[in-house]
């Protein structure tokens, strides 16, 4: 089963007007690419991937709010990381 299908089983209240994670999308340094590779591998929601032209594709809509990307980024690649505003984001029915 694909990760997109899996996320489809979850309940999300997406804050359409307010991204809680802002990422750098292109012109990565070698160091940033190493970090980016780790983030792509680790994100349990599979939200990070590279386009063929080397730019980053990222969508915060399926975010599980675990903070993995923020920890791996160590202040690089991810320009801003906040929790979604209250009531928004994922809502676990099992957890």
């Amino acid at each position: 089963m694909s990760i997109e299908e899996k996320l489809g089983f979850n309940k999300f209240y997406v804050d359409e007007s307010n991204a809680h994670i802002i990422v750098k999308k292109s012109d990565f340094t070698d160091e940033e690419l190493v970090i980016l590779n780790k983030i792509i591998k680790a994100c349990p929601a599979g939200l990070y991937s590279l386009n063929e032209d080397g730019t980053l594709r990222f969508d915060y809509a399926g975010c599980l709010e675990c903070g993995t990307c923020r920890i791996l980024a160590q202040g690089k690649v991810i320009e801003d990381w906040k929790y979604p505003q209250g009531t928004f984001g994922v809502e676990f029915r099992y957890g």
Partner: protein
Amino acid sequence: MADKFDCIIVGGGVAGSTAGYMLARVGLEVLIVERGNFSGAKNMTGGRLYSHSLESIFPDFAQSAPVERKVTREKVSFMTQDSAVTMDFQSDRLGFQSKDSYVVLRSQFDRWLADQAEEAGAMVASGILVDELLVRDGRVVGIKAGEDEMEADVVILADGVNSLLAQQIGMRNEIDPHHVAVGAKEVIELPPSVIEDRFNLNGDEGAAWLFAGACSDGMMGGGYLYTNKESISLGLVIGLGGIGKSEYTVPELLENFKQHPIIKPLIKGGKLVEYSGHVVPEGGYNAIPKLFGDGVMVVGDAAGLVINTGYMVRGMDLAIASAEMAARAFIEAKERNDFSADSLFCYQKKLEQSFVIRDMKLYKDFPAFMENPRIFNEYPELAAGLLTDLFRIDGVPNKSLKSKAFSALKKVGLVNLTRDAWKGVNAL
């Protein structure tokens, strides 16, 4: 809403609600602020709760709390790509009250615990994100959420592993990837009778099963399976320090894990109902942040209170106990009317005198020991190889058990083996 509370607790998980309950029941004005729509909405666990610390606060809690199953069966497997060597312990001895453990689902369990705090008189404000702590003259005096500011004698941070607030006031540094792991979990629905048959359980009994080896593809980490009433929780935890060494992403590793011959028949016919992810503190004693300051205490995951020894993982019992002690420390501070760091030092003292810090210290070398890749590659291969030799009969003249064992051990190297065994024994 009152302008000033005795105590504001950020986070309505098991730690936050326990602290809230302890304070409210002695008549203190407590506010618990939870960013989810209800307590537990943002929380997940593998996972099981060792009951002892909650039992001392709510005797017989398992009679009324929404627990899934009582664990009476413990399994640990060492996996290679195509095989598994499993230790299996099944016993009623695991089920004695206050020495037992329960599989729980946090969305339901945390809500129950928050209700207990509310019934005791705590105010629970859900759906509110705390943006920052109010700090005046170097002292935490409250919280800021949107336009609202609320003050308290003390703020207890129970806001989880990724505590941005603790970081904001310098209680801890940026999280070191070597000190945490990422967990990914599927909740897979199956009829109770199928679960009982597949895991050899009666009624409300449950199984806890940990996996080491191929499932983490050589990286520090492992798999887990816990039986709920009408579903099973199946997941992986992978250390962030070694992430990137595998060609697979974490979601791909979980898919591979589900295809493994030991797992596949266990989840056959099951229906996925939820997929979740979370970060787990794994740094142990050496990664505990500053636990108290002027007007502030840190509890639970935010304080890094998790013990992973490979064969068992604990967090919630430590979170509950730390919250209880923070609450007791607050009550003492309130009697002195002194909420300075010097006064709140009694929180750390209580933790140090309890099983919380003693157990954290006992296993302090284990996180470093676990960074040894042989544990996840060579040793599962060794065990599977040895047992293959033992059980496979093919007409070729048999070798003695001793020589079979010796040739398997030689592959890892006797020096490595002795060294790892010695380190492992000392780390435990």
